[in-house]
């Protein structure tokens, strides 16, 4: 209950951002929410299942591209959005064979899958607009009603991300969530208890792809353009960093991480010439100095528990 109040308070505080009247902050906060949701999808795999995927940027991008293509092709939002999420889920089902492996193998294989998606985005020009991407994506509208400016879009994003966070919180404390934790802790024991663990990891992977897909949909609508930058490896890598950096294993962690990373990208970058070095140092510092328990695998942190 306390957690719910905290979330409500944060949502309320964020709702005041458009009142500052500065679209820079509105736009940046929106990006933090969107990439935070992407980080949630990665965090789900890291903390609940114990696998680190490097292809969630591909789910993110495929959903964003689908929305872009359909919306600019005249489809209504009510059809474009489900189609986009379905596209991400389908890709998740295809890439899901990677859960047959584990550990390092899983990381490397998902990385290669992500690169495959990127190479399609840049070279299949007729469909994806190539390097230029797809522009002029309208704001979403249901039955003619929808946001008409950045501030209104902000509230749409806030509401949807908030909803996804609640859904997520429910999933990780569900029966299924508990069985995933069991797999993460001791897969051989889960097998000995009779569970089909690979199937469960597969389902978790697809759930993760759906969350990444929703983030991709929001990304397309908020940015109003999509380019191959959305599918780059660094999107997946930085989403992982956001998840770890945020740390606590709560739903808020990934958003905290997203705040720091987006802050470096968009605010610190204006002050420090070699800021990618700083980004690298953040990666290193997170690994070395943040409590080692923050990684779900070492099992030192208190997790969200029933």
């Amino acid at each position, binding site marked *: 209950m306390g957690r719910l109040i905290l979330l409500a308070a944060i949502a309320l505080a964020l709702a005041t951002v458009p009142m500052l009247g500065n679209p820079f902050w509105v736009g940046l906060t929106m990006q933090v929410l969107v990439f935070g949701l992407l980080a949630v999808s990665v965090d789900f795999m890291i903390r609940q299942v114990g696998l680190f995927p490097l292809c969630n940027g591909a789910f993110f991008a495929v959903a964003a591209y689908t929305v872009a293509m359909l919306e600019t092709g005249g489809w209504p939002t009510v059809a474009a959005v489900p189609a986009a999420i379905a596209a991400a889920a389908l890709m998740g089902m295809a890439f899901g064979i990677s859960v047959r492996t584990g550990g*390092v*193998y899983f990381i490397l*294989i998902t990385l290669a899958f992500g690169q*495959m998606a990127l190479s399609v985005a840049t070279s299949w020009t007729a469909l994806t607009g190539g390097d230029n991407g797809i522009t002029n994506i309208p704001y979403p509208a249901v039955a003619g009603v929808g946001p008409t400016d950045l501030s209104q879009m902000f509230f749409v994003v806030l509401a949807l991300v908030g909803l996804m966070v609640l859904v997520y919180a429910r999933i990780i404390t569900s029966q299924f969530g508990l069985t995933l934790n069991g797999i993460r802790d001791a897969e051989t024991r889960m097998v000995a208890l009779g569970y089909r663990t690979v199937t469960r990891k597969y389902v978790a992977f697809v759930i993760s792809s759906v969350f990444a897909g929703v983030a991709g949909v929001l990304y397309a609508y908020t940015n109003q353009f999509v380019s191959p930058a959305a599918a780059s*490896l660094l999107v997946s890598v930085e989403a992982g*960093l956001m998840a770890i950096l945020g740390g606590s294993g709560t739903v808020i962690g990934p958003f905290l991480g997203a705040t720091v990373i987006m802050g470096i990208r968009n605010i610190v970058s204006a002050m420090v010439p070699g800021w990618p*070095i700083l*980004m*690298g140092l953040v990666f290193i510092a997170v690994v070395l100095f943040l409590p080692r328990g923050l990684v779900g695998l070492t099992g030192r942190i208190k997790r969200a528990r029933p």
Partner: protein
Amino acid sequence: MTHSIALQFLNGLSLAALLFLLASGFTLTFGLARVVNMAHGAYYLIGGYLGLQVVVWTGSFSLGVVAGGLSVVAINFAVDRTLITRTKGDPLLQVLLTIGITYVIAETALLIWGGDPMRVPQPDWARGPVVLPGDVFYPRYRFLLIVLGLAVAALLWALYRLTPMGAIVRAGVDDREMTEALGVNITLLFTLVFALAAFLAGASGVLGGAFLTLYPHAEWDILILALVVVIIGGLGSIEGAMAGSLFVGLIDSFGRWLLPEAAGFMLFGPMAVLLLLRPQGLFGRAH
């Protein structure tokens, strides 16, 4: 037609030779110490740039290759001792850490050498084409690279399979604790293997920089290819690195020739199918 096939075959081999040099170090490090070091791409890049600098100063290509290799040995020693050991074998942390190291190294290289593509000057004795039977012209440099790749592969294989040290490394790959129980100084062994891997990565940067050029983001381009090599071949296996390099090199050259639009799929598609059938790769061990 046969002319083109011969040419593409050689092209595949020359890329395979380069990839083998990079991937064999990666795979050995992983096999022995379970360290996944994504900074290998950055090692390739920084080794290439430093080697280039030495070639420019001394005029000796060979010195440049050695210097590129040795400088990365030093870098890797520092990185390993101060940073990687602190990840305590957690692959997630290792991946994040070594990607962070990649950012730092690549951006530093960018600040020093700038963003324009640079090419390591080829030595005089490797310039120009060789003429092969059937009137096939092939660059002497690439031809020598293939020879070097084969030589290093043979040497590594012999070290790995035929020498006492190789036997210990293989035992270490299989069961580290047992090797330690045998009273082998495993720390020294690790240091040697790490040094060898780092040397190969740095030297391959100089060798690759002489025909693929060095440029920002080269670290990722080459790392992805090397990762596909080890995924296909199987982590921790020298034979796997050989097979994977050949596969990736040949697929890349024939794919670009026959099906240029689908070159990306040609590389990743077979990899996905292989994973479905054999998740541990061609020569990897089930885990």
